[in-house]
Structure formats: C-alpha cells, structure tokens
C-alpha cells in the first residue's frame, strides 16, 4: 500500500516534534489528560452534545451513532490528543532531566515512580465510568493470560490448548477459598472468618494457591506429553480441557453446571494492577534467565539444545507448569472481577480468544502479549455496536495479520525496561 507523500511528511513532522520525549513525559501527559477528563469531562461532553463521557475514546459511540462523530472526535482531541501532544512536546527537557536524575538512584525507584504514575492514570481514567473499570481489569487479566500462554506457545514452541482449563482450576480454587471462608453462602455454608479486611489481605495468597492447583493439573499433562516430541501436547491438553470442564460440571458442591457466584469484590483495580505487574515482571525474568534461553534453544532445535547440555525435558516441564501457574492466577482474578463463574465460561470459546490474543500480538515477546491482549480486548469492546458482524471483523483481521505477519504484530521483541525508562538522547 502506498502512503501519499504529504501524509508521510505530516507524520514525520509530528514525530520529530515529540521524539525527544521520554516515557516520563508521555506518562505525565496522559496523566494530565485523564485528570482533565476527570474534572471537566462530563460538562464538556454535555456541551458537545454527547450523552455521556465517551468510554473508549468515543470509538464505540462513533459506530453506534455516526451523527455524533464530529463531537466525539472533538472531545477526544480536546481531552486527549492536545494535552498529551503538547506536554510531550514541551516537557521533554524537564522529563529527560527528571528521568536522568531518577536513574542515578537505585533502579527500583525509577520503576516505582513510573508504575505509580501509570496506576494514577488508570485510577483517574476508570474513575469516570464503571464500564471502563471492568474493561480495564479484563484487559490486565488478559495480559497475564496471554503472556502465560505465550510462554508455552511462543517461547517453548509447543501448541497447548488447555489454558481455559488451568484458568478454571485457578478460578474455582480461589473462589472456594474466598467464598467458603469469608462469605455466607448457600452452597458452602457460613463464613469461617468474619473479617473482610483479613480476606482482602489474604486474597493474593488464595490466588497463588489457585495457581498452584493449576500447575498441579498441568503436571498431569506434562508428564506424558513431554516424553516424546510432536504434536501430542495439542491433543492431550485438549483432552485435559474437556476433562476439567466435565469434572467441574459434576462437582455439585461447587455449583456444578449452574456455576458459582457470590465472590467477594476483592479484585479491585490496585489488586489486579499489582498482580499483573508482578506477573509480567516475573515472567520477563523467567524468559530472560538462563532457563528462558534454554527454552528458546529447545524450540529452535531440540537435539542441538540437548547436545548443549540443556535438560530439555526439565526445561519444558518447568515452563509448562509456570505458564499454567499464571493462567491459574489470572483465572482467580477473573472469577473475582466477574463474580460469577460457570464451567461454560472456560470452554473452547475462551480458548479461541486467548489463542487469538497470543498470535495477534506476537510470539516470543512480552510486548506482543501486551499488544495482543489489549488489542483484541479493546477491539471486541469497541466493535460491540456491530453485534454479530464483530465476529466477522475480528477473525478477518486476525487472518490478515497471520497472512502478512505470520508471527504476530510485534514478535521476537526484547522487553528492556532500563532502555524504556531512560531519557531520550536529544539531537544536538
């Protein structure tokens, strides 16, 4: 496709204007934008004739009511584009100075400051509507899920189909603990502890137990399937998915096919945010460690890896269990965001969704998983007004991505935190 020269020039000019801005400036710009929206969003939306604050940058609104496109565009420009652009343009010197100063301190400080800003952005952005809050939580959970499947399908190069099963294990385990111990429930009886605060504090622990159970389930798959090479993980994991689903359907004390509801509302934004950040950090460490390198070696050539003293079976098992663990944690979070789970949630539809996210974003890359998870979740929210056509558009897009970029949009890209957070070198 040929892009006209004039558009190219305009984009190049814009890029030149803001290229010196470090991540700090961008974050600050976004922070100002969302703060602006938090304060004047509603009156501005009313003044422009919009029914309410456009939830997802007005995109859904544009599809639903084409007449409101100019107002929605204007709103997005005033609230987001102008502040972010201007601040990125004019605060680059200051931003670079601050970023450089922060880097002199221990690296943790820089990371914490950036994460704090990011959290503040999320907090203010979701403060406007509950719809945004739920969407954002699902996106963060989707990042965890996608990344954990990317470990297996991208970094290790196998094809696993059992992720919804791991999710279900984690979701049900965590829910059993929270519902059984901390709430009065029809199925599970009265609360053992009557302190919600204690429960909230112990919630991460319950998620970890959920993850551990998912990992234990993964062991059942891992032992037979990594004995030999080939496609048998695909089918064994698929069988496992059906087994888990059927098992839950037949356990009446967990609600059976009717599902389990009444999870306490503990998956708040800070909780989901911090667990996702921790998950991304730990998984990034995993794939950049020696074992992660061994993992890539196993994928590229198993015999050669074995010759280079990589214990291929152990590496594969560990990676698989590790991926399953995070899927379980994500499942636990998911259960407490949606606050109702049934075996039907963890079926083939979910599998297709997670696979789509992994392959859309890109294999073997943390960035890819983030792009895939956010991209597909955002698309499926934005295209909601199209109703059924949505399920023609998203698959079509994915097919095009697969044809033109078979490894996904941002595959094989390094996730280098230090480089990301350091000041941009300005041109002399």
């Amino acid at each position, binding site marked *: 496709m040929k892009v006209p020269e004039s558009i190219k020039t305009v984009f190049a000019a814009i890029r030149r204007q803001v290229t010196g801005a470090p991540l700090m400036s961008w974050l600050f710009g976004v922070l100002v934008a969302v703060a602006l929206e938090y304060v004047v969003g509603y009156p501005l939306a009313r003044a422009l004739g919009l029914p309410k604050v456009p939830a997802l940058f007005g995109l859904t609104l544009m599809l639903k009511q084409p007449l409101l496109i100019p107002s929605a565009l204007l709103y997005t420009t005033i609230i987001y584009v102008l502040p972010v652009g201007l601040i990125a343009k004019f605060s680059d010197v200051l931003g670079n100075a601050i970023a450089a100063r922060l880097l002199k301190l221990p690296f943790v400080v820089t990371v914490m400051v950036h994460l704090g800003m990011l959290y503040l952005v999320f907090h203010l952005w979701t403060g406007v509507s509950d719809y945004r809050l739920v969407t954002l939580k699902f996106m963060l959970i989707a990042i965890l899920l996608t990344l954990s499947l990317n470990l297996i399908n991208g970094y290790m*190069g196998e094809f696993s189909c059992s992720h919804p099963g791991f999710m279900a294990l984690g979701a049900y385990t965590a829910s059993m603990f929270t519902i059984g111990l901390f709430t009065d429930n029809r199925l599970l009886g009265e609360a053992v502890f009557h302190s919600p605060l204690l429960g909230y504090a112990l919630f991460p622990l319950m998620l970890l137990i959920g993850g551990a159970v998912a990992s234990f389930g993964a062991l059942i798959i891992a032992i037979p399937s990594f004995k030999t090479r*080939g496609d048998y993980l695909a089918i064994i994991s698929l069988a496992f998915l059906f*087994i888990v689903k059927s098992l839950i359907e037949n356990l009446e004390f967990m609600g059976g096919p009717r599902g389990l509801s009444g999870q306490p509302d503990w998956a708040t934004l800070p909780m989901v945010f911090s667990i996702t950040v921790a998950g991304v950090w730990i998984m990034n460490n995993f794939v950049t460690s020696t074992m992660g390198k061994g993992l890539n070696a196993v994928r590229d050539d198993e015999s050669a890896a074995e010759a280079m003293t990589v214990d291929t079976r152990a590496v594969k098992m560990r990676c698989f269990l590790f991926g399953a663990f995070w899927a379980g944690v994500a499942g636990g979070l998911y259960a407490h965001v949606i606050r109702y789970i049934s075996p039907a949630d963890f079926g083939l539809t979910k599998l297709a969704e997670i696979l789509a996210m992994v392959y859309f974003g890109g294999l073997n890359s943390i960035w890819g998983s983030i792009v895939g998870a956010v991209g597909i979740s955002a698309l499926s929210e934005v295209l909601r007004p199209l109703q059924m056509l949505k399920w*023609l558009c998203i*698959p079509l897009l994915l097919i095009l991505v*697969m*044809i033109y970029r*078979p490894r996904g949009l941002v595959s094989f890209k390094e996730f280098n935190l230090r480089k990301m957070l350091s000041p941009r070198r300005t041109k002399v």
Partner: protein
Amino acid sequence: MNVDILVQNIFNALQFGSFYAIIALGYSMVYSILMLFNFAHGDIFMTGTYIALGVATVLLGWALPTWVVLPMTILLAMALTSVIGMVVERVGYRPLRDAPRASAAITGLMIGIMLETGVLALVGGQKVAFPELIKTETIHLGQITLTNIKVMIVVASLVMMAGMHQFVKRTKWGMAMRAMAYDFPVVPLMGVPINNIARLTFGMGSGLAAVAGIMFGLAYPILNPYMGIVYGWKAFVAAILGGRGSIMGACIAGYMLGFIEVFVTMIASSVPWMSPSWRDLISYSIILGILVFRPHGLFGESYSAKLRL
C-alpha cells in the same frame, strides 16, 4: 441388562462413531498431508449440513419426490461444501504454507468462527429442522428394534471409508498424497502439483463432511450453528488419536470414540452413584490414558515435528 439394549447401544455407538470417523477423516487427511491442524473442519461440517438443508428445502419446494431430492441433495451439498473447503484452503492455508504451523491453525480457527457467524447471520440462532428425506421405519429383528436410518448411516459410512482408503492406496492422486505426507519438500521436485493435491485434499475432506452432515440431519433433524464446534473438536481428537498418516486409524479412532461415549453413558446411568453427565470426564480420561501409552496415536508412526517458528 438385556441383549436388546446392548445391541441398540452398539448401533448407537456405530452411528455416532460414523459421524466422528467421517469428520475425523477430513482432519486426518489434512493433518497427514500438510501437517496442519485444520480447525475450520468442524465448521465446514456444520456449513455442509446447512447447505444440504437449504438445497433440500428448495428442491422440496419444487414438489419433487423425495427419492429424487435425496441424491440431488447429497451431490449438490457435497459439491458446494467442497468448493467452500477449497476456498478455505486457498484463502486461509496456502498463503501460510511457509509460515509457522501454529499460525495456520489460528487462521483455521478464525475461518471456523467466520463460517459460524455467517451461518448464524443467515439462518439465525434458533434451531431449525432438517426435512425428513427418508421415512423412518423401525426394523424388528427378534427382540431387537432398530431404525432404518441407523443401519443406512453405518453402511454408507463404511462404504465411504473403504472408498477413501482405496482412493489413497490405488490412484495416482492418492499416491501423490501419501508422498506429500512422507516427504513434503521433495515431492514438488518430482513434478507433483502440490497445490492441486492440497486443494483436492481439502475438497474431498469437505465433501465427506457434507455427507456426514446430511446423515446427521437425517438422524437428528434439529440443527443449530454450534454443532460444528461440538462434533468438530471431538472428531479432531479422534483424528489425532488415530495417528498421523493413517486413514484407517482415524476411522477406527472415530468409532472408538463413539463406543467409549455411548458405553460410558450406558454404564454410568446404570450404576447408582454415577450419572450420565460423567461421560466427557471418563471418556477423555480413557483417551488420555491411551495417549500416555501410545503417544503417536493408535496407528501413527513415530516422527519428529516441531512448530516451525
């Protein structure tokens, strides 16, 4: 338990097994020859059923007698579904032949979703009834009662499978398919038009899926667009369970799946502390157990394949 129920269940199992086996055949051929998981195949089966429904409805609308409608429906539905299969191959798989295999699997999955949505948009989500093209008759053999449709399905499936087996074993095209399964990179050097063979494979698999769809419609005349997922994935399990490169393997595994499911249900409903809803749990556990001992499937040879990344 009396013999009557046992024999009836055997025929039920044979009938379900026939559906699974014929759908699995399509999966298995593509998997053996192109090393691809054709996840769209289940939905091609579903689309074939709906095409047959459409064709039959139109033909019956012209007030043709059913003995004319049935063969015409079979032929037209096979032809149209084969075309769909070939289009899927051309659009979704051929551009990805050199890409990682997993990417092609994802394309198949997405094409399946698109087919499903397409049918859903055209027909609507409600269940529709398949016209009664063959009058159901009950056959009494001593104590045993059977319907003629069940017998026909089993016989027709066995004939088709035998035909397919002979095609692959005896003809030039079949030989090209086996060669592609054996050594993909070398085959084009021998002057075999691999694109045509791939198209043929998809076309034949889809045509068979259409026949399976018609038989399904005759046996269970209530259709919904999600039936492709349910039967497709089970047939996929059967195809891989059969082993790569073995058409008979896929068929036998399909029948095995049918038998396991029916008999697990039968046993579970007669044992007091079990319930028929344990079917999936037990049957997939059995399959998992089989794969532990025969990791390359029932009749597959050992081979080494990695996802080409």
